[in-house]
């Protein structure tokens, strides 16, 4: 077990290093994106551009620039090209909104995903199962920004019972915080609920025909006990693993679309805005930060898996 953990941690480090190089390279290959000439403005002389390039280090070799950038990221002193704002401070400012979004939506989609998944296994293939299956497929097929903008149109503009976007901190006014988060939570959760319920349904129905479940029933256990102690215990593990990864993605600003539609001013929206202005440092930091979260959570999930299920081959 210890060897497995050490090994998985080492692999994680390698992936993290690769992620940082890859992220850096994506923005190095931007054609016509020379940041020095963009910062200097349209009427700049070549001398001014060269001076800016020198002071930002754009004239150095790529690997030096990479090391320099990584150094700035680790010490938290990255500044954006436009307006020279400290990126880390800016991300910290966006975190409360993003965490509110992820926490609320995460609870909603996990709860409803499990409930819907369970309901559809009561009588597989019958009306309830088919209806829920159809609804689940529909929610997976709808892009979040369509769900979001239609909900906004109906509840904020037509019925005007909910605010049309923006973020109110929980500490400032809990009720308003809730009102502002409700639509983003629902729009973000719907596709996840659809997906999770289908995964759980498949897992439960597969488990129902396993020998250990037949054994438990043969022992004379009540079906409720068989379900909770034997079927669900095994079926929920993959769902939880999935949840960990998706949750990390949302916390990391992966909910770009939802944050932009509802103007939550979170990390994802910051990324979207920086992309529009081609401001490389914030995008790089956010993308790296998200990737780090996802990779670390994935490693934790793997280790937890190996701990929960000793059959998982430790050298895989």
């Amino acid at each position, binding site marked *: 077990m210890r060897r497995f953990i050490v090994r998985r941690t080492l692999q994680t480090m390698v992936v993290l290093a*690769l992620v940082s190089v890859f992220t850096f390279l*994506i923005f190095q290959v931007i054609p016509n994106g020379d940041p020095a000439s963009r910062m200097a403005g349209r009427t700049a002389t070549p001398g001014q551009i060269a001076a800016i390039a020198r002071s930002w280090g754009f004239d150095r070799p790529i690997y030096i620039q990479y090391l320099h950038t990584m150094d700035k990221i680790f010490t938290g002193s990255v500044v954006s090209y436009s307006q020279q704002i400290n990126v880390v401070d800016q991300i910290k400012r966006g975190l409360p909104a993003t965490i509110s979004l992820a926490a609320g939506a995460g609870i909603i989609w996990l709860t409803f995903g499990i409930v819907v998944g369970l309901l559809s296994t009561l009588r*597989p293939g019958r009306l309830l199962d088919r209806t829920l299956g159809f609804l689940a*497929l529909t929610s997976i097929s709808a*892009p979040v920004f369509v769900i979001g903008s239609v909900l906004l149109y109906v509840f904020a503009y037509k019925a005007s019972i909910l605010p049309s976007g923006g973020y109110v901190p929980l500490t400032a006014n809990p009720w308003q915080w809730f009102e502002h988060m409700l639509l983003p939570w629902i729009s973000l959760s719907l596709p996840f609920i659809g997906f999770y319920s289908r995964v759980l349904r498949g897992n439960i*129905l597969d488990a129902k025909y396993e020998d250990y479940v037949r054994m438990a029933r043969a022992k004379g256990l009540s079906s409720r006990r068989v379900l909770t102690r034997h079927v669900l215990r095994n079926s929920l593990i993959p769902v939880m693993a999935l949840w960990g990864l998706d949750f990390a993605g949302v916390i990391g600003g*992966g909910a*770009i679309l939802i944050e932009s539609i509802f103007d939550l001013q979170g990390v994802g929206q910051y990324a979207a805005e920086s992309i529009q202005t081609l401001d490389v440092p914030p995008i790089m930091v956010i993308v790296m930060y998200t990737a780090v979260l996802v990779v670390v959570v994935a490693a934790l999930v793997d280790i937890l898996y190996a701990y929960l299920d000793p059959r998982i081959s430790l050298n895989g």
Partner: protein
Amino acid sequence: MSTKELLAPASPPGEELRIQVGAGPYRLALRRLRRRKGAVAAGVFFLAIVICCLCAPLYARYIAHTGPDDNHISATVIVGGHRHNVVSLIGIPIGPTWGPRFLLGADFNGRDVAVRLLYGGRNSLEVGFSAMAITMVIAILVALFAGYYRGWVDSVLVRLLDVIWAYPAILLGVAIGTSLTLGGISLGPLNLKGGSLYIPALIIGFVNIPYVAKPIRGQVIALREKEFVDAARTLDAGGLRIMLTEILPNLSSTIVVFVPLMIANSILLEAGLSYLGAGVQPPNPSWGTMISDGVRLITSSPHLVLAPGLMLVLTVLCINIFGEGVRDVLDPRSASRGVRR
């Protein structure tokens, strides 16, 4: 003596030799699929959507009499005997007229939404299909090499997949999309201009690779230990030959299941990227860009979001229902899942 003769029971001379050949797995699957009315209906409906989108130029020329990028800001249209401005004086475009001109209304530039919807669908579908093709080809190759050779090849390839997989798809897509849509790509023989449709297709295809390659690699690892692979190896078959003629055919049902899933995912991701301005570039319409343009005016003209939004949902839903039907008939475990076969 051929195998057929060996297998046939000794029959008296002069009598017709008859062998009952069983239906192959694909014929059986097709037969089962035909019995699933919902999936077949969804597939047919999807085909209808594709055909409609392909006929976009016909509709534009003979029914709407306008192209996808033609502005009619100052034009008027007669609805129910009254003359209306296509775009009102305060900038609100006309809603659905349900007539040949501006069937689904106009957008803020006075362009015909129905015409743009068909042309946009063409682009969305084209991006979806090409992205799927890119994902599948690369993912299958990566999975075959990683899973068959194991060792350092596997380690390197899996780490690379992990790197792509570490980014949320939309975030990575937007990051690459922004950097490429500006200047295009020129990688050796591959030369794409900035506004090309194949740039979003390439990006989406690339971003989706790990989601296909990882599960298929797992299957390859299991298959390479099978006896028939050992047998091929003892016959001195090379690695490439084993991968292509022994392992690949056994992956086909998984591949078939992934194809509709990837088309659906690619269309959705294209819409998301276009919504953020990193996908299909104007003036090319796509369902994503149309929604993105319409959101600003949703309070006064909801049809600008509803028309492309509904088409998008309907199309992806059809693909998903059909895809689930295909998965159920190919999956041997589906009997336990209460699926009638």
